[in-house]
């Protein structure tokens, strides 16, 4: 029981931090909800990238550093192809490219390195990551491209009856959230209700036993990297339509790192919840905590948004290394 105390304290502190701005009357409810929604939207995007990490880690135990590069590559592919063809053709083609990538990665990277140390595979995916970053730019170019999903960027005012001054919300943010929810739902169905999903879960639980019932690991890896590729296409399009398709998307992956630490490396719900916590947490911290800190310590500026996620992840590593929903590892010694 003792081991839960610090976790509970941490969660209580987070919740306290969350309600503090409202409770202390530092802000109006309308603005507070606006920040909260903004955080949730950003969180959804983090979740999408984190999902890719979790899928691959679960099925193969590989920490795929290249997930961010895959998002960038997918976004670039879709954006450039959409310039010469309709989006509804470009997207399936983009998915096709990611499946092809999955096959190549399995063939050239995973298969030769099977049964190597985790660190070796991590380095290999680091290599894949840099290769993809560069290769994407060689093939598709290195400017900033846009993906137009046909949604208006204009914010709309909602709930003006409830809050004074109403709440400003972007239509494309809402669309992104809906897409993310649909994607997660589809993945859950795929994993729980299909024979292939069952095979994937089997591999995630026990490689050796999965092989003994005739599940070929190689094909499972291709499938799971393909699924991560599809997730990358969705994440890339959502990010790309919001920020423009550019190199910085690749760095988003680094934000997904604290998300998976928080949620647990092996948990799909963990990736979602972790993303939302990080998204909301850093927005809240930036807007409400940073003025307090600046005043108290006479700082030059805020910038909390950049490190908040990592500090939170560090705290979780200290009190609950397996993350909120991860499996606790019990090793025989």
């Amino acid at each position, binding site marked *: 029981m003792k081991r839960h105390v610090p976790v509970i304290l941490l969660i209580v502190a987070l919740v306290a931090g969350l309600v503090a701005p409202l409770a202390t009357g530092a802000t109006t409810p309308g603005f507070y909800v606006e920040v909260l929604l903004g955080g949730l939207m950003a969180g959804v995007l983090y979740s999408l990238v984190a999902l890719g990490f979790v899928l691959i880690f679960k099925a193969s135990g590989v920490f795929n550093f290249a997930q961010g590069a895959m998002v960038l590559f997918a976004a670039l592919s879709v954006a450039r192809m959409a310039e010469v063809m309709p989006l509804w053709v470009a997207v399936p083609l983009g998915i096709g490219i990611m499946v092809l990538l999955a096959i190549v990665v399995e063939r050239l990277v995973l298969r030769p390195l099977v049964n190597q140390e985790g660190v070796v595979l991590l380095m290999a995916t680091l290599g894949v990551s840099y290769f993809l970053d560069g290769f994407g730019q060689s093939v598709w170019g290195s400017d900033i491209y846009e993906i137009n999903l046909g949604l208006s960027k204009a914010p709309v005012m909602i709930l003006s009856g409830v809050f004074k001054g109403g709440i400003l919300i972007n239509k494309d943010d809402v669309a992104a959230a809906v897409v993310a929810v649909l994607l997660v739902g589809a993945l859950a169905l795929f994993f729980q209700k299909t024979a292939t999903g069952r095979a994937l879960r089997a591999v995630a639980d*026990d490689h050796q036993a999965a092989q003994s019932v005739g*599940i070929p690991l190689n094909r499972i890896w291709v499938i799971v990297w393909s699924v991560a590729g599809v997730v990358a296409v969705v994440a890339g399009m959502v990010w790309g339509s919001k920020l423009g398709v550019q190199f910085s998307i690749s760095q988003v992956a680094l934000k997904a790192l604290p998300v998976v630490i928080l949620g647990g490396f092996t948990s799909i719900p963990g990736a979602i919840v972790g993303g939302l916590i990080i998204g909301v947490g850093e927005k809240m911290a930036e807007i409400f905590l940073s003025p307090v800190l600046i005043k108290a310590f006479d700082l030059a500026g805020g910038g909390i948004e950049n490190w908040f996620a990592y500090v939170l992840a560090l705290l979780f590593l200290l009190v609950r290394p397996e993350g909120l929903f991860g499996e606790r590892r019990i090793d025989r010694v």
Partner: protein
Amino acid sequence: MSAQPQAQEMMAGGRRIGEVVLSVEEVSLSFGGVNALTDVSFDVREHEIRAIIGPNGAGKSSLLNVINGVYHPQKGTIRFLGEPRHDVDTHEAAAQGIARTFQNLALFKGMNVLDNIMTGRNLRMKAGLLAQAFRFGPAEREELEHRAVVERIIDFLEIQAYRKTPVGRLPYGLQKRVDLGRALAMEPRLLLLDEPMAGMNVEEKQDMCRFILDVNQQFGTTIVLIEHDMGVVMDLSDRVLVLDYGKKIGDGTPDEVRRTQAVIDAYLGVGH
């Protein structure tokens, strides 16, 4: 199916021991400088129960792992159903009809009993990925057919009450049954059991013995098993292979093996 198993004596007469299904010829396996198996030869005939015994570290599990494609022997030939095999991987061995259970349970802990046993049907599922995902007609029908087979196995193993229970929550003896069920779901030509009774109490052992005999009698499944409990081995098996330090020191019916001097020495020790 028709043969009603009544007593042990019927075993030899009730089933027809058939052709050789598996033959292991002068197989040697070493890890670095350690010889796990040295020139081991033996065969398994259809419908028989073949036991592999020996002291700890004798190479029993290594031999099982060689048959099932986990290890590839440096020397020797393995013929399954008459065909020589070369560096067959575990999932390929499974596709050829070799199923196994594990000494230390290797169930899929995140899944319930039903799903665990359903994974055993994986190889027999033909519907494509997309058909499964959207549950097109054939995929749906296929899933239901496999489900029916699995339900029969669950009935057979008397674990109906736990169908939807996550396997991690079941007592050890029942988990062993699920492990057996998963292997049976593959409808194997050859079933490998790695210490099916290890860590069980007397009652659980009796149940497991009964299931192994029933599988053999009712489905005619050929079984190779590793077991430490001598009483169990002598009662269950048609023929026994004895290993010591990776070498074969005895092979024959339980009675023959019991009388072999090398076996007695290995088990009781010899004065030096």
